């Protein structure tokens, strides 16, 4: 079985190409002048520049975290270009004005930016190396009162909202990479769903890293007012590069009373080649704040790419009866390293959280679940259930589980379970005895393993996620 499986595992990266578009790149290096330059280029108000500078000054006093079970050479932050924007600077009114080269790139990636997506009812805010090029369906969303635009646009058009919520969930000095992001973020998405509005469509953003060594520092902010509902999709692909790329994004979600935010991610950045050369460093801070009573935030992630993943989408359950959810599939192969998990911080009464994490490791990769469930002294009646399963393919990979449970309230209940398994010879034999070949058997077992998470994904994403797992592990399995 191992040779078949190895063939399946060794599928090359299919999105590897570099689009030849001239980029407007700020010289490499990081100092206050670079930050002022970024801020000036984006025509930002003074308070935002101040926000950046104070984050930068704090970042200078911090040291890179070393606690994660990942191993990489120190990053030279002075060798990174902190800003790059596609040359076509003017605002585009229609798709015809978009650089045809760019359109072809999306074509290759299979991003149906035009009619297909419209028929599918998805508005796509395409991020092409830091600056939004076009946004569809803005009008329909505007009719519902939903604001969905690039972050820079939001800074110009809705500064009061940005100012009110930016940094309230992930403080600018929260951790090393969040501080770096707060100082140099270039663009991202902003989404605001006003009171009582159910967002009429799923919101989707494609991130794409293009310029060599231009670290991307995305900033996403989603605010759902009282009773609002939104489902947000984020998907990533990147071309094949030799040099490691740093990606340090920050995502903040704010859910007010009875609001409901569902955030789904499929991540398939370049993971380096079979020898572990190259690949993206994905150091992301994602956190949601259930500020109001009865609010709900749900994270679903499918992590298949990146050389190193360092990512803990978390929920702070502040409102009484609020709900936090985390569903994750993390797949590592070759030399990939993933240290991912979640934090559920229960502060309010009768708060509930669910954690379902599925890790698959193959090759010589390392896949760790690291999570925290914290029940504060005032979180009476809080409830948590966590399940972390690992599957190992091959005997040179590693699967680790590091759950932290901190309970300070005697009326709460916390449960954690973890198991490890492999695709057993007996399972394959059973399939074979039913006339099912190894390839199909493996795909069925893996699909069964991750099913609990995939059922949480929006439909189009579930298809894409299955395809990704297929690419990574099972060949043609859909």
């Amino acid at each position: 079985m191992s040779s078949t499986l190895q063939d399946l595992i060794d599928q090359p990266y299919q999105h590897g190409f570099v689009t030849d578009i001239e980029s407007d790149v700020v010289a490499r290096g990081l100092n206050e002048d670079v930050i002022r330059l970024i801020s000036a280029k984006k025509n930002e108000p003074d308070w935002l520049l101040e926000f950046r500078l104070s984050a930068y000054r704090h970042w200078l006093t911090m040291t890179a975290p070393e606690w994660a079970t990942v191993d990489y050479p120190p990053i030279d932050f002075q060798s990174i270009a902190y800003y790059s924007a596609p040359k076509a600077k003017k605002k585009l009114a229609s798709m015809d004005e978009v650089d045809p080269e760019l359109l072809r790139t999306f074509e290759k990636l299979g991003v149906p930016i035009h009619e297909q997506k419209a028929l599918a009812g998805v508005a796509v805010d395409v991020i092409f190396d830091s600056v939004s090029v076009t946004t569809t369906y803005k009008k329909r969303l505007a009719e519902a009162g939903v604001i969905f635009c690039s972050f820079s646009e939001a800074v110009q058009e809705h500064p009061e909202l940005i100012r009110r919520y930016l940094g309230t969930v992930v403080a600018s000095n929260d951790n090393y990479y969040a501080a770096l992001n707060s100082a140099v973020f270039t663009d991202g998405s902003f989404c605001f769903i006003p009171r009582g509005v159910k967002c009429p469509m799923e919101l989707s953003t494609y991130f794409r890293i293009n310029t060599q060594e231009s670290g991307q520092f995305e900033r996403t902010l989603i605010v759902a007012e009282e009773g609002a509902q939104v489902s947000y999709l984020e998907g990533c692909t990147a071309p094949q590069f030799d040099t490691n790329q740093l990606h340090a994004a920050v995502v903040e979600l704010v859910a007010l009373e009875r609001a409901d935010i569902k955030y789904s991610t499929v991540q398939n950045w370049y993971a380096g080649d079979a020898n572990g050369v190259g690949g993206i460093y994905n150091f992301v801070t994602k956190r949601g704040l259930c500020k109001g009573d009865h609010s709900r935030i749900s994270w679903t992630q499918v992590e298949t790419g990146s050389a190193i993943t360092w990512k803990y989408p978390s929920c702070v359950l502040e409102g009484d009866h609020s709900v936090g959810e985390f569903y994750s599939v993390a797949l590592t192969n070759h030399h990939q390293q993933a240290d991912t998990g979640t934090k559920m911080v229960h502060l309010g009464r009768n708060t509930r959280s669910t954690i379902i994490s599925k890790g698959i490791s193959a090759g010589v990769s390392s896949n760790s679940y690291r999570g925290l469930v914290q029940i504060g002294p005032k979180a009476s009646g809080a409830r948590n259930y966590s399940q972390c399963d690992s599957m190992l393919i091959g005997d040179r990979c590693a699967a680790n589980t590091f759950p932290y449970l901190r309970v300070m309230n005697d009326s709460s209940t916390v449960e954690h379970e973890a198991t490890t398994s492999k695709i057993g010879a007996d399972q394959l034999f059973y399939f074979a005895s039913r006339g099912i070949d190894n390839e199909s058997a493996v795909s069925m077992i893996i699909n069964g393993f991750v099913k609990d998470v995939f059922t949480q994904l929006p439909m189009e994403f579930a298809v894409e996620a299955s395809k990704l797992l297929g690419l990574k592990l099972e060949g043609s399995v859909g």
Partner: protein
Amino acid sequence: MSMPPPVAQDDAQDDTRDEARNEARDANTSAPPAAYRTSVLDSQRALAGSPAAWVNQLRREALEQAHVLSLPTRQDEDWRFTDLSALYRLAFKAASAPAAVVAQAIDPYRIAEAPQRLVFIDGVYAPELSEGPSGEGLTVCSLAQVIAEPSHRLHETVRAHLGTLAPASGGAFAAINTAYLHHGAVLHVARNQAQLTPSHLLFITTREGLASYPRVLVIAEGGSQCHVVEDHVSLHQGAACVNAVTEVHIETNAQVRHARIQRDSRSSFHIARCAVSVARDARYESVSIDLGARLSRLDLSVRQEAPGVHIALDGLALVGNGQLADTHSFIDHAAANGASRQLHKTILSGASHAVFNGRILVRPGAQHTDSAQQSRNLLTSGRARVDAKPQLEIHADDVKCAHGATVGQIDQGELFYLLSRGIAPEAARNLLTYGFAADIINRLGVASLAQRLRQQVLEQTDRAGSPS
């Protein structure tokens, strides 16, 4: 490895913020005062040289390590939840001369089933209180005696094993213990000999302000069996400090049962390290029970050296107001076909704190490992706090590993059932708590001791149950 700092930015998040503040404050104050190191090592100079040169060598190296190794603080991941700054503020001296203890004083601690007993008063061997001839193939004797007699038949064996599993370089506390290496217990069972009755090692502290350094070396030769009960008790209510090191060598096909009871005074500090090596097809079963001490910490590491071993670790920590019990266990599956099972329970009342860190490592090539770990924590007070961290690190694919952790209260359904039978709520709660604890105590395999501990649990839960 630690999580990023807790979120701290919003007004309503005062819980987290308070904690962040506390942690920041702890970080400032918990830097171990150099004074502690100096004072704790001060009485080491008064220690008479050992007749054996290799012991002096061990001590000297340990002393160097004790000066070099950093004393743990909450900045260390392994001590994140256990704050030693209260210990560092105090000064403990090693006992210079043994205190006189009358035989009746130890009566409550005698174990009827145990023919052998070694007694240590404040860390010093008390031959007059010890008894029991060494049985067939079993030698239970004073470490100091073995060291003093180069002709002793265990002298070379002890020399070859002492300090190998828990070396001084492994941590500041083990180094300090080794620097004071003198008194201790040796338990040796010869090849193919089975000694099923327990051997009782009783460590007594009699006065406050004293530090003692218990040392135990267990060697079970191939095919042998033995049962050791390591028992730490206090005859006083003051603050003493116990820094214990136990090493257990289990050779091919041997079986060792190890009971560890810690019932020091509730003002004391108890820091223990137990290192076990398990050879091919051997078996190690351990039951650790922590009832006493203001702060207790047990580092229990068990290493599977060769294929086919069986490891069972059970633990119970029952803590009340002002107590902290910390258990760090580490099961190292370094070879194939190993089985391990662990059940750790804690019961918390008052403002108490329990910490459990259970690490299971399956090294590359340790195929067919079957490991199951359970951490169960019962909170009976709103002021208590639990930090549980079961860890799995797996580097082999053909293994079965599972762990689980729960934190909760007494089951309302069970409580209701007892109430419906006319049992008063308080009594019902105590009964259920007792049952939760008795599950572990019953695994001790020493009936009279189990009986006494169950009694103590009942008393302790009664006390905790009454309004305080």
